[in-house]
């Protein structure tokens, strides 16, 4: 577990460093994820070692958004007089985006014969 945590933190650290030094728009942890993927591809045996810890964290991924969510409650007032308009735009656009994204995926999968097996 300690080794996996160390690798996860090292990947995040390297990702943060790369994002800052190179001025990338992508956040450090996302770059860290790609580094971690590179490590897993290079050393497939590492996957078995990392699995319990990584899956333990991912199984409780929802929990990690709770502190930020509580922070948002205090800032609901920053939506100001446009609150209703912004909320309508946000909910409707999310519905449309999920429908468009899934629809486009299924359509192209059918056209290219990229079935799942």
């Amino acid at each position, binding site marked *: 577990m300690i080794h996996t945590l160390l690798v*996860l*933190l090292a990947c*995040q650290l390297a990702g943060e460093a790369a994002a800052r030094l190179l001025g990338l*728009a*992508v*956040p450090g*942890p*996302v770059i*860290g*994820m*790609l580094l*971690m993927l590179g490590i*897993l591809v290079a050393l497939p045996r590492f996957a078995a070692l990392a699995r319990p810890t*990584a*899956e333990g*964290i*991912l*199984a409780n991924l*929802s*929990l*990690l*958004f*709770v*502190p*930020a*969510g*509580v*922070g*948002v*409650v*205090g*800032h609901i007032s*920053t*939506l*100001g007089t*446009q609150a209703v*308009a*912004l*909320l*309508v*735009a*946000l909910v*409707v*656009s*999310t*519905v*449309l*985006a*999920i429908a*468009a*994204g*899934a*629809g*486009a*995926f299924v359509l*192209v*999968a059918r056209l*290219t014969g*990229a079935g*799942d097996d």
Partner: protein
Amino acid sequence: MTDLTAFWSYLSEGPLLWLALTLLAYAAGDACFRASGRKPYVNTVLVAVAILAMILWVTGTSYGTYFEGAQFVHFLLGPATVSLALPLFDNLGRLRRAALPVAAGLLAGSATAAASAVAIAWGLGVRGEALASLAPKSATAPVAIGIAERIGGAPTLTAVLVILTGIAGAVVATPLLNALRIRDWRARGLAVGVASHGIGTARAFQVNPTAGAFAGLGMALNAVATAFIAPLVLALFL
């Protein structure tokens, strides 16, 4: 009574109580979700946030004090994002075979999210800073905030809109995709990750492991795509 007051002020100033309450509220949220028969609108994050906001309000506790304890949970978001590499690795073969559908789903989802949000808000009279804050809301929080700053938005407002978008996506995804009769877990996951980042991804993992892996991929890809798409969309409306 004064003992109790002293004890409260001791506890409420330290991180222990707020960390424990964060886990307790989440456990309560999860219990509600299970008790409802896993109804998507009884969202675990939403219930936990509501409980904690209520506790902070009743006890007159500032968010800063609360975050002293909650930061230990919040901090794990970084390592959790890195951990998403594991499900990606497990599904690498399927991802390679689905490269074209993934690209199509990403472009359609990302462009629709930004363009429809800005168009609807514009139509309802939203202008300027608020409109710029809305454009990147489907990307994961740090990316969205960075983009908002560059295109003239307000970072705090963007943070609020990002979290609300995540919750909206997590709540609507399952009933919406069922109604559309989309059964491909890859398509469902990718679309949810693109439209509603980590909160949507967390929800996808609750539903199906394949959906979770593709949601993580969608979130990561949209972090990059939004950086290009949001400024373009906004330029159409300014």
